[in-house]
């Protein structure tokens, strides 16, 4: 079982960040998220000709004095989004030093806090095999965050990970915010279907691929008989030498590129998050660089 701790200093820094949604937001309730439709927020969006019946309070009198024509000021509308975070809770996430599970939980907690700070609703799910278990549902506000987020530590990591089979049958919302998938994506199971499904629901999809140090730079050498932590029937028997390690790294690069390319092709965001990397580096480094946060 992965465990994580909340770093209050980091949370304070995360508060300064703001997520950028690519798709039109379609929340039902007013919130902090700027919608692509015009509304009643304080942020100026555009002008249009005044039509009879329009609110005369929104007429720009300065423009009338200059152009001798009435223009109505338009303002952005603001909606409340629903951030859905899916965590790969398969056994492979806790094998070894459990650093992947910890990293996944930390990322989920940080992203959840970011959403909470933006007055958004947050739900966190754990995926076991083909099942999606809701860990935190509709969490709103910091107070709720502080009471709910601890549930992440109750997530059990076991079984395998079938992303598409797990997500497709569930309600994922439509155009109302981020869908974040945190996984190692080290599976030959179909994950593309889930991404396609979420994209088709006009959700901003972000895939965070968490890999441990041992996976990025394997230290195994010599004659090895390796067993898969999720399925003991799967085994690999070989004398691991420099050539094999080289092939391993090429295979890993292939896996990473495959997920990344697929995400980019579907307009989703992909981010490789080494388990050893700090949340600060991921949020203030990679995510900012990618334009996910600002």
């Amino acid at each position, binding site marked *: 079982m992965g465990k994580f701790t909340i770093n209050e200093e980091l949370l304070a820094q995360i508060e300064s960040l703001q997520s950028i949604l690519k798709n039109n937001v379609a929340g039902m309730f007013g919130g902090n998220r700027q919608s692509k439709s015009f509304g009643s927020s304080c942020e100026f969006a555009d002008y249009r000709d005044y039509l009879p019946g329009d609110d005369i309070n929104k007429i720009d009198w300065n423009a009338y004095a200059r152009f001798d024509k009435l223009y109505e000021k338009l303002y952005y509308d603001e909606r409340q989004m629903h951030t859905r975070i899916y965590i790969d809770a398969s056994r*492979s*996430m806790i*094998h*070894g030093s459990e650093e*992947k599970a910890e990293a996944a939980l930390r990322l989920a907690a940080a992203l959840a806090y970011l959403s909470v700070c933006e007055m958004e609703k947050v739900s966190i799910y754990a995926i076991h095999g083909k099942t999606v278990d809701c860990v935190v549902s509709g969490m709103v506000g910091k107070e709720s965050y502080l009471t709910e987020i601890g549930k992440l530590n109750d997530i059990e990591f076991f079984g395998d990970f079938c992303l598409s089979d797990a997500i497709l049958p569930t309600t994922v919302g439509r155009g109302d915010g981020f869908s974040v998938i945190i996984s*190692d994506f*080290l*599976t*030959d199971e179909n994950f593309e279907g889930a991404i396609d499904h979420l994209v088709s629901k006009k959700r901003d999809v972000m895939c965070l691929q968490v890999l*441990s140090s*041992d*996976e990025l730079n394997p230290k*195994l*050498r*010599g*004659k*090895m*008989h*390796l*067993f*898969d*932590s*999720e399925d*003991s029937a*799967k*085994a*690999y*028997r*070989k*004398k*691991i*030498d*420099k*050539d*094999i390690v*080289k*092939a*391993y790294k*090429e*295979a*890993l690069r*292939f*896996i990473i590129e495959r997920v990344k390319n697929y995400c980019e092709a579907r307009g989703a965001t992909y981010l490789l998050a080494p388990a050893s990397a700090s949340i600060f580096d991921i949020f203030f480094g990679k995510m900012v660089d990618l334009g996910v946060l600002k």
Partner: protein
Amino acid sequence: MILTYPLCLLALLGIPAIIIIYIIKSQYTEQTVSTTYIWTLSEKFLKRRNPLSGLSGIIALILQLLMILLISLALIMPIFTLKDRANEYTFILDASASMNMESADGKTRFERGKEEIDKLIEKAPNGSEYTLIYAGGEASTVYEGLKSKENARKLLSDLAPSYTTADITEATGLAQKRFDARPGTLTYLVTDKTYRTHQNVTIVNVSGSEDNFGITALECEMKSEGADKNALYVNGILNSYKKGTTLKVEIFVDGAETPDASATFVVPLGADFKFEIPPIMLKKPSYASVKAVISNADSYGADSEAIVYNLKNEKQYKTIIVSETPFFLQAAVGSLGDYDVTTVTPSEYEEKYAENDYGLYIFDSYTPANLPDSGAVWMINSDSSLENTGFSYRSDVVLNEPVVMEKSTSSQTAVRKLLDGLITKDIYLIKYLRYSTYGDYMTLYSYDGVPLIMAGENLYGNRTVVFAFDLHDSNLPATGDFVNLVGNLLDYSFPSVLDGSSYTAGDEIIINTVANSESVKVTAPSGKVKYLDTQKTMNEYVLDEIGTYTVEVEAGGSVREHKLFAEAPREERVPTVIEPNFSIIGTPSGDRLDGEFNPAIIIFIAIMVIFAADWMVYMYEKRQLR
């Protein structure tokens, strides 16, 4: 194939041991990883795998098994037999004195000869057998049928030339025996002589165009009176083996550092040239040694000098005459030189002198209670038997009329020497004593088969002279022969250690053991020391070196030193000698010995190559696992 050390086959047990180690070592380490997905997928990316890496484990195993196999072979030391590929060699190495001649490169002929044999051994096929005959003063077989090249060369390198004439005839006999046993033998004679004809032998001539000069037959005489008193006359013979050479001869008296005289002579090629040095005026009445040196440089220095030592009067031993009537003896001994003689009566001898040591005891008509166990003894007219004398008294014989004593006609050298100078035919005798002898005596005079004057050794090993008559019962003391006989007997009783001082290397000389000698030590020119047997009156000694020998005799608490010089044999001084023929008799056969092939070097190289390959495989694996 011969397995030198078959027990080393046990080393092959290492092969199954290595295989077992590999089986144990080859077990896979089991481990659970988060996913095998990447590892399985990596197989698709494993392109152009080095074929060596796939087999590396097996290659290392194969290499190590090969290594054990080769090491076992190396330990077993197999030797393969090659039919009719080797020879039997007999080398005759001339070790005569002339082989000491040096050529311009500083090597002697003997050294060049050894090099020639060494080359022949080195080139000979393995499995060949080598026999080396050393032809020095005596021919001897150094080794026979030796198969080891290394040992053959080692023993060859230890040889040194002699300073004498080689006994080539005996060496030929030894080689002939070898040839008779195996007619396929290849015989080589390594010499500095040229043979006009030769059969069944390959002559390896190691002579060069050396120059040589020699000096021999050195003589010197010192005048003791007259106008040229104390003048030293030196002469000798020079030889030159270079046409029209002027030789300079320098004379050194008594070991002087600078020459006392010198002269130059134009010496003809090859012939003896008698030279005389102008008289050398010495300021002393005697000399100890005279050395003549040819100062011209040549290839053989050993014959370029000669030394003559002055034999000193060695008869300085104490003599006691025990007699009631010593007149004849006193007169004879006194006339013969400066002898230290004590004359006493029998009663005085018994009272005072019996316990003293003397070089010579002369008992005249008196038989002491005990025979002295040291020193020579003369027993004259002893009418009773005495233990250890080697003879016993039997009876008195009184003749009716004088009879003539019969002088021995024996050709024995010692007898002739004792009778030397005795010319009187008629020595009469009226009365004598009959003795029976059981010691080692030679008869000088006799009558009717009864010995009258004898010389020999008593049972103490001391020289003894026996007169079986009273001197007063014979006319012998009145003849001139008496003094000569006494003189000869004194020489016999007080023998000179050396008969001369000039010899030739290879000579066998006699070194006499004087009375009371405690030790006789001979030091050769090379420093080699030999102690002679003092129990023997005469010791044979071979002069096998050139130069000065020192004989040190310790007697009566003092040490006397005698010197002699052995010069190089004259025939060994000739740089170029042409001999008529050297042949091994018989018909050579083409029989050859089985050769041997020892693959040790190949195995060793193979081990090194495989070791290097194994190391490279190991390093490659290590690099692969980094």
